[in-house]
């Protein structure tokens, strides 16, 4: 099959996948079969995109998936609001989000220290972790270019994950232990940066 045909197939599967999921999630009871069919179609779309044009095909297919979902959302947005649902709507908010500001911040902690830990200190720990990844790539026989790009790519992934993990922790001691632990485990690899290139 030609790459153009595969791309069209990927687009068709993407649209079909979104449509099936829309139908599946509308049902009052869960349907494992429908869910698997929907997710399966989306997975098949991505695979077809990859087979058609590699990473470019995957990117294009994902755009089609999102666009199809937006079309479905546009129909949902155009639906008239149901009358007498305000109370239920509020109840829904209460179930999925805290009712008050106090609920979102149950403990009083120094915002400045939290900011420092989740911000610059986590960033520094992430850079150390990225350099450790580079050292490991090079020690495993990887190319210098791969090691260097690993540094550039690891920081934007590691830092937000570390920051989020810290913000999910209630106790300051645990926060400090996590960020210092990452830094301490990564720091020795600094000694291997010159020796491995």
């Amino acid at each position, binding site marked *: 099959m030609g790459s153009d045909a595969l791309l069209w197939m990927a687009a068709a599967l993407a649209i079909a996948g979104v449509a099936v999921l829309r139908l599946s999630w509308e049902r009052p009871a869960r349907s494992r079969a429908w869910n698997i069919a929907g997710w399966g179609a989306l997975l098949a779309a991505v695979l077809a995109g990859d087979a058609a044009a590699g*990473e470019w095909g995957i990117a294009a297919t994902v755009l089609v998936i999102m666009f199809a979902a937006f079309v479905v959302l546009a129909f949902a947005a155009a639906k008239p609001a149901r009358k007498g649902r305000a109370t239920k709507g509020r109840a829904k908010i209460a179930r999925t989000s*805290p009712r008050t*500001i106090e609920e979102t911040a149950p403990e009083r902690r120094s915002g400045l220290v939290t900011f420092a830990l989740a911000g610059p200190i986590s960033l520094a720990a992430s850079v150390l972790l990225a350099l450790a990844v580079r050292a490991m790539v090079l020690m495993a026989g990887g190319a210098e*270019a791969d090691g260097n790009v690993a540094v550039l790519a690891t920081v*934007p992934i590691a830092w937000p994950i570390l920051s989020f993990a810290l*913000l999910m922790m209630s106790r300051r001691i645990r926060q400090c232990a996590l960020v210092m632990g990452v830094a301490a485990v990564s720091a020795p690899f600094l000694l291997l940066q010159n020796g491995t290139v």
Partner: protein
Amino acid sequence: MTIALSKQTVRKAISAHSALGLICCALLYLICATGTAIVLYEEWQRLEQHDAPEMTAIAPASVQRGIENVLAAESDRPTTTHLYVHLPTRDLPRATITTDTQAVHIDRSGAIAMPEENAWAEFLLALHYRLNLPAVIGMSLVGLFGAMLVALTISGIVAHPRIFRDAFRLRARRADAVATLDWHNRLAVWTIPFALAIALTGAMIGLFYISGVGLASSGYGGDSEAALAPVFGAEPEGDPAPAPIADVTPALAFMEREFPQTIPYYVILHDPGTAGQHVQIIAEHPRRLIFGEYYAFSGKGEFRGTVGLADGTVGQQLAASTYNLHFGNYGGLPVKIAYILFGLAMTVVVATGTFIWLDKRERAARPSELLRAAWWGFVVGVPAGVAATLLSRLAMGNGAPFVAIFWAVCLLALALNLLRFKRRGGVLKGYIRVPTA
């Protein structure tokens, strides 16, 4: 389908999501809004200077004549260290030569036609990727916000236990807090792949001054160029002895003959007029995310090889793919339209996120209507500022003070909204309101 997370975990995730969102909301909104507009970077340039000569292609001999004409025009000053020729492309069908001191359009014959005037597009680009600040500070800041967008995406997923079950529920016409929440959650959920791609690539580019400097300091004695050389190639040793200007014609002919499937779009002449001069051609590879491959030639047009962005290591290909994936210029107008749509969605997500927080405060009997008025002012002010600078460009020309106009309009919108709030006795009318208990 639901993700099984404890209520406490969800609550903490909401708390983390709110904290991150509040810290980042203003600049993140600005970055998302300007990023959406800059998708049309090439089209804006064409609008700014609609009388520049356009062509679908240019003959190699004309390119050479253009180079010689530009260098002759600069004979009264030190010779440029680098000379860039932008070849006509589908998105920007113009031939433009840029040196260390100027940029000019050339016509089909290679004659200098007019100076390039795209100050507004450049302003918009600079506003997006460095907030009009010095590059080190501005790009790092934008990179930091890109990384925080990743954190917001992750925390948003964890904070939303019915993420899939509710994925198509959008009660937009209720025009209340529920509608605001639905807009935020639905647009955010369906743009997750886009948001992650944009945020990660943006953070990778923007955080270079932090991660790249860390790499250079630890492995290359602080030399950032040496750190990047394994990825993007190194600059050959120069030879300053005078020599006739290099001829790029054989290099362009070689590309047409040996790599007909590629689309050359940039010719770079390094150290022109010296014995060490050499030529690089950047060529697009259709249906690839990489911005292109560097094809190296000697000053006499002998092919020296490629860097490996198209077929080198995974790291090289990944690094070369970040730019196109971020800016959405890998599939022509359809991909650009998609990027604009999803970029707008992300902008709405950031704007509504803050409104949701304000609604929560109101439900907790701690209304912040002054903050709400200020946020409305900023939300309106950013697009108004961008529109005002574009109008200034059209009315006042290339030299309009875009940075001053943009921030003045932003501040004015904010001040007007606060004034409007004050005049109404502190009671907001006409804004998104939550049902009172």
